[in-house]
C-alpha cells in the first residue's frame, strides 16, 4: 500500500513539474510574441539586438518603456487575480468564487474611481497610493460581504457568502455608474477604459507599486496551502483537525482581498481570471493547494498576458482592453462550469 502511494505520488510530482515548466515556457513564448506586437514593427532580429542594448534609441524606448512594463504588469495582475481566486475558492469551498463575482474588484474600483474623480489629474500624487486605496476599498467591500453573510451559529456559509458578494458587487457597480455621470469626458473615458479592464498603468512605477503585494501575498498563500487543504474538507472536519477556522479564514480572505485589490488598481475590472485561472490549474494538477497555488499563478499570468497581447494586436492601432478579451473567453467558460455543476 505504501509503495503504491509513493509511486503515484512520484508520478503526480512528475506531472506537476511538467505542467509548471510547460506553463512557464508558454509564458516566455507569449512574452516574445508580445514584445513583437505593436504599432511599430520590430523584427525578431531587431528585438534581439534591442534587448541586449544594441538597438536604436527609438527601438529601446518602445521595448523598454512601452511594451515591457506592460507585459510584466499583465503577468503580475494575472497572477494576483488567479491566486486570489484560488484562495477564495478554497476558503468558501465554492468553485464559482472569484474576486470579480464577490464584489472585491468592484470595491477596489470604487475607491480608485473616487480618487480619480476628486483629485484632478494635475496634482502629482505618488502612484504607490493606488494599490493601497484599492486595498482599502476591496477590504471595505469584503468586510461588508463577510458581515452580511456571517451567522452566529453557522459561521460563514459558502453559498451565502457568494450570494451576498453578488448583491454587493451589483450595488457598487451601480454606484460607480452614478459617479461616472459627474466626470468630465476625458476623466470619464479614463474610468470607462479602466472599468473595462485595460492594463493602463504601463509604466515601471506601477510594476514597482504592485510587485511587493504580489510577491508577499502569494508566498503567504503558499505557506498557508495546508490550511486551505484542510478548510476544503469542510468546517466540521477542519475543526476536528484542529484548525481555528474563523481566524484562518479571515487571514486568508484578507490575503485574497489584498491580491485582488492591488491587481485591480492597475488593471481595472478584469473579471473571470480569478475564476478560470484556478479552475484550469485544478484540472491540470489537482486540488492540493501546495501545487494549485503556483500553477494558478502561472495560468493567470499567461491568461492576462495573452488577452492583453490579443487586445493590442487585433484592432491596431486601437486597443481592446484585456478585460474584455478575458470576458469573451471567460463568460462561456463560466456558463460551462455552471452547467457542469448542475450534474
Amino acid at each position: 500500500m505504501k509503495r503504491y502511494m509513493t509511486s503515484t505520488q512520484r508520478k503526480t510530482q512528475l506531472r506537476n513539474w511538467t505542467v509548471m515548466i510547460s506553463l512557464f515556457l508558454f509564458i516566455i513564448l507569449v512574452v516574445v510574441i508580445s514584445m513583437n506586437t505593436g504599432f511599430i514593427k520590430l523584427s525578431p532580429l531587431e528585438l534581439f539586438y534591442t534587448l541586449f542594448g544594441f538597438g536604436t534609441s527609438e527601438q529601446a524606448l518602445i521595448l523598454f518603456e512601452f511594451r515591457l512594463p506592460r507585459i510584466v504588469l499583465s503577468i503580475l495582475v494575472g497572477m494576483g487575480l488567479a491566486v486570489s481566486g484560488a484562495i477564495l475558492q478554497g476558503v468558501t469551498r465554492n468553485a464559482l468564487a472569484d474576486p470579480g463575482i464577490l464584489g472585491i474588484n468592484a470595491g477596489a474600483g470604487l475607491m480608485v474611481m473616487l480618487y480619480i474623480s476628486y483629485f484632478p489629474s494635475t496634482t502629482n500624487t505618488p502612484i504607490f497610493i493606488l494599490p493601497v486605496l484599492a486595498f482599502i476599498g476591496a477590504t471595505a467591500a469584503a468586510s461588508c460581504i463577510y458581515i452580511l453573510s456571517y451567522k452566529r451559529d453557522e459561521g460563514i456559509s459558502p453559498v451565502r457568502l457568494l450570494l451576498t458578494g453578488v448583491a454587493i458587487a451589483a450595488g457598487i457597480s451601480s454606484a460607480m455608474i452614478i459617479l461616472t455621470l459627474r466626470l468630465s469626458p476625458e476623466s470619464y473615458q479614463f474610468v470607462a477604459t479602466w472599468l473595462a479592464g485595460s492594463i493602463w498603468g504601463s509604466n515601471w512605477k506601477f510594476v514597482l507599486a504592485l510587485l511587493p503585494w504580489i510577491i508577499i501575498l502569494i508566498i503567504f498563500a503558499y505557506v498557508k496551502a495546508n490550511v486551505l487543504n484542510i478548510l476544503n474538507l469542510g468546517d466540521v472536519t477542519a475543526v476536528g483537525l484542529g484548525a481555528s477556522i474563523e481566524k484562518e479564514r479571515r487571514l486568508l480572505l484578507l490575503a485574497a482581498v489584498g491580491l485582488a485589490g492591488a491587481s485591480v488598481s492597475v488593471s481595472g475590472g478584469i473579471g473571470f481570471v480569478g475564476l478560470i485561472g484556478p479552475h484550469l490549474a485544478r484540472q491540470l494538477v489537482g486540488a492540493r493547494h501546495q501545487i494549485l497555488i503556483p500553477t494558478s499563478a502561472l495560468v493567470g499570468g499567461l491568461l492576462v498576458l495573452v488577452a492583453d497581447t490579443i487586445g493590442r494586436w487585433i484592432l491596431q492601432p486601437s486597443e481592446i482592453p484585456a478585460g474584455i478579451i478575458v470576458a469573451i473567453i471567460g463568460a462561456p467558460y463560466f456558463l460551462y462550469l455552471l452547467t457542469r455543476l448542475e450534474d
Partner: protein
Amino acid sequence: MLILRKVLVSFFSFLFILVGCQDNVSEDDVKETNDHTVDEHVLTDAMGNEVTIPANPDRVIASYLEDYLLALGITPVAQWAIHDGASIQDYLQEDLKDVPTIPYDLPFEVVTSFSPDLLIMSSADMVEGEKYEQYSKIAPTYVLDLENNSDWREKLLKIGEVFDKQDEAEKVLVTYDEKAKESKQLLKDSMGNQSVAAIWLVNNTFFIVSDKVSSGVVLYDDLGLEKPNVVEEISTTATDNWSEISLEKLAELDADHLFLVNSDKGNGAKMLEDPIWKDIPAVKKGQIYEYEADSAWLYSGPIANTQIIDDVMTSLIK
C-alpha cells in the same frame, strides 16, 4: 452581472464618443511662469512640468488643437481622429488633407512612429496615470490645461507662447476681432433686433448651443446677435457646450433665425418631419439655415470661429 457591466461600459463609451465631440470645460488650476530665450526656451506647463521647447519645432503633434496651430502657420505632423480616421475635423481639411491621422487617445507607439519633436496635450486628462513621463521620453511634452477650456483666445495666446509666436497670436486675434466688428455692424444694419439660435441634430435628438461656448460665443458675443429666451434660460444651467433640448421646448424657441447643424442628414433626419418642428416660427418662415456635421459649427478656435462668421454672413445677409 459582469457581462452586463461590459455592455454598459461599451454603451457609455459610445456615449462618450458623442460627448467627446464637444469642447469641454475643466476646472484645473493653471500655473504659468515663463522664461524666454531666443532659441529653445523653457516653459512651465499646466502640470508644473518644466518643458524645454526646441528652437524651431517642425514635427509637432497637438491633437485637437490643430485649429490653433494652423492659425499660427504651423502644420502638425499628425491630426486628431476617432474611429481610425472615420471622424476627423472636416472643417480644417483644406489645410490638413495631406496630414496623416492619429487616434485621439495618442497611443505611445503611434506617437513615436511620427518622430515628433514637440507634443502639446489639450488637457491634463490626456496624460492621466503617469503617462506624462512616457510621452516626455518621446518628445518634450507641454500640457495645456486652462481654467476655462472653452476660452479659445486664452488657448491661442498660450499656444503662441509655446511656439514663441506671441505676436502672431495677437495678430490673429486682432484680425478676428476686426472681422467680427465689421460683420456685427453689417448684421445690425440689415437685421435690427432679430434673434438667432444654433441647434444641433444628432441621433434624433436636438441640442442647443450655450451662449458661453463655441458657436454660441460667436453668435451672441462676437456678432452681438439677439439671444432668444430659451437660449438664455438653458445657458444659465448648462453644464455642457450643447444642451439637449426636447422638441416641445424647441417649440417655445422664439428665434427669428435658426442655424441647424444636421448630423442626421445621412440617415433621414426624421425629426425634421415632425409637425412640432414644422411649427417652430423660424422654420415656418423658412429662416432656417442648414449646415452639415463637417462644418465648423461644433468646434471652436480661430479658424472655426472665422468660418462660423462667414457662414452667418452668407446665411443672413442676402
